[in-house]
């Protein structure tokens, strides 16, 4: 399969318009104010996000969408990762892959939001209930839950119990989800692929952002009379950060095209993307803190925000062991 992994002109234009909006409306600095936590900043501009077309990107034109694909969604998810955008933007985009005509128009119009339901055990839809964490679910209408066989939307539970999250800029609530009456269903493994790839893209963007932060600091911060980025110890850390980010981006983009080419093909490429993107975001997050030194360890710096988000996104329906098991059970790489 010969691919071009750089954006097409259309993809680039759309990505740039999203990036410009994020730079204006969702700067990282917002996450130093509690008022923006839990996806509040995103809620405040939800109408603008809908107007951009985010929630109809891969919806067919016949259903009122843009008729694009997961490729375009992944392209913007990478930008969301760089800006630590609320996971609920991703889950709402993914919900458009599941929603029926009763729910979809409201999602596309920006009137309905959908949060991730993160299961604490492997999901079995034949059970009565599932223990889940709801992520940035304040005021959402539905939650999205999936396994390798099926994806479902459920009405958001009303009796969720707030809990404190490792990533304190994100809202986390525990709930027991009644699996009996889904609001929408889609059979097949598509959501596992699509969600894994959207989360991989956000993690890859997170890894790119921390690499860029570390590099900027390396150019600016002076010790022993010269910028610390001129020292090989720092420079080589940065080079490794760039390599990890590049691996995560490249594998995520390749796996996306592979998933689109063979909808029910093997899971290998997707799981490889998820494994490496998670690793890249967490490792780069750690080195970004290290390169920032004492500042990097403080609450007022940005560095910790990226590391915490990396752990959160890595742990959404996934873990290193889960992805490794998928990788070794699969047929192997796409040629």
């Amino acid at each position, binding site marked *: *399969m*010969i*691919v*071009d*992994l*750089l*954006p*097409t002109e259309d*993809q680039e234009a759309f990505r740039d318009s999203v990036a410009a909006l994020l730079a204006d409306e969702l700067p990282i600095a917002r996450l130093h104010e509690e008022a923006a936590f839990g996806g509040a900043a995103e809620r405040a501009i939800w109408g603008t996000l809908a107007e951009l077309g985010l929630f109809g990107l891969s919806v067919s034109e016949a259903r009122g969408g843009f008729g694009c694909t997961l*490729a375009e969604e992944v*392209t913007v998810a990478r930008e969301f990762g760089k800006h630590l955008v609320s996971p609920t933007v991703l889950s709402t985009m993914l919900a458009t892959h599941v929603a029926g005509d009763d729910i979809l128009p409201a999602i596309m119009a920006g009137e309905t939001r959908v949060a991730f339901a993160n299961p604490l055990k492997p999901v079995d839809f034949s059970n009565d209930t599932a223990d889940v964490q709801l992520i940035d679910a304040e005021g959402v209408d539905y939650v999205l839950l999936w396994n390798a066989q099926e994806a479902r939307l459920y009405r958001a539970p009303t009796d969720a119990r707030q809990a404190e999250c490792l990533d304190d800029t994100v809202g986390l609530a525990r709930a027991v989800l009644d699996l009996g009456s889904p609001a929408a269903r889609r059979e097949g493994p598509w959501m596992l692929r699509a969600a894994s790839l959207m989360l991989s893209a956000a993690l890859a963007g997170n890894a790119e952002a921390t*690499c860029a932060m570390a*590099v900027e600091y*390396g*150019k600016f911060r002076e010790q022993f009379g*010269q*910028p610390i*980025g*001129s*020292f*090989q110890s*720092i*420079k*080589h850390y*940065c*080079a*490794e950060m*760039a*390599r990890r980010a*590049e*691996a*995560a*981006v*490249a*594998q995520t*983009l*390749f*796996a*996306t*095209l592979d998933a*689109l*080419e063979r909808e029910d093909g093997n899971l*290998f*490429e997707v*799981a*490889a993307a998820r*494994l*490496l993107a998670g690793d890249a975001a967490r490792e780069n997050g750690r080195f970004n803190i290290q390169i920032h030194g004492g500042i990097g360890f403080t609450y007022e710096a940005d560095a910790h925000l990226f590391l915490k988000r990396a752990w959160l996104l890595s742990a959404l329906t996934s873990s*290193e*062991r889960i*992805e*490794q*098991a998928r*990788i*070794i059970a699969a047929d*192997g*790489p796409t*040629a």
Partner: protein
Amino acid sequence: MKIIETSAERAFREEVREWLETNVPRDKRPHDGPAMREFDMAWQRAQYDAGWAGISWPVEFGGRGLPLVEQMIWHEEYSRAGAPSSGNMFVALSHAGPTLINEGSDEQKAAHLPRILKGEVTWCQGFSEPGSGSDLGSLRTRAEIDGDHLVVNGSKIWTTYAPGSNFQELLVRTDPSAGKYKGISWVICPMDTPGIEVRPIRAMSGITHFAQCFYDNARIPLSNVVGGLNNGWSVAMTTLGFERGTANIAHQIELSRTVERLIVIAGEIQAPDGRRRAIEDDAIAGELATLRAEVAALRSMTALTISRNMRQPIPGPEGNLVALQFGELIRKVMKFALRLLGAEGLERETRFGEWALEYLECFKWAIGGGTTEIRRNAIGERLLGLPRGPRA
């Protein structure tokens, strides 16, 4: 970001696959010596005769003049068919040829490109010196102009496949008074020039594929300078760049096959506890999975690099990311292989005997063509824009 293989290109792929299936040499490639060189040249000749040599090289010099996509398809199918590595033809096909295409005069192209594609000549690389490794720009092999000749004195080292080579891409200092990187020239050196001596060097694996070359008043025609006198540094950097493009596809597919072989082996041999197959040990399976993912990423990184190169004629510093990933990964894979095989991996004559050799050979990938440390410098400075470190 899209799939760019058209139906015409799929047809090309089919054609390539079919030809390779029936024509890849079935004889085992000799391990070393003149027999190995002749094997490599004969295989190149067979590809030329069937019209498969120089897929992207200009038609007027014997190539096919096809776009990059066809070249990538060729590399992919070539490696998948288990075709032998280009070996003694590597420098000619992947370094010297592309450099001459970009920087050579019409006479130089006409004299050398067709002979390379026909497998009539092999080339070697004369860049590193005993005192100039990572700091290549400090090279001291001199070339003084005497009439219409250069008179070369000095020594080159780590010259792979030097014995038997017809030509060498040779970096010499032609203006000692100019700045470090300014007085260097890139010269086509005929290896049968009187005054050149080649002394083989044995590697840690026991294999003797490289050598040290000595030049004692070796007279090379001035017309053999490529890309202009004292412009050799920029010509050489271009040459190194080509190593980071499509030529990587073959190595990456080879490494992928290696990991797939390890997964098969782990399914056959016992875990260290002797109670189950190795692949059923979670720690072993986990490590194998990570290696499998990292090799897939290497393939995707190569695709991303080539995507960039489709928009820029000369490869940029991003190629170092691929080289870094490869150099580190192959060592991880080979180390894992020896740990997996345990005691059996120690014996060179058993069914797993090849792994010890491959392990010992893999160290070269993090050293040759630029150490991983030099690659990290290049990524830091040329790609990320970090301030330069000390330079003499």
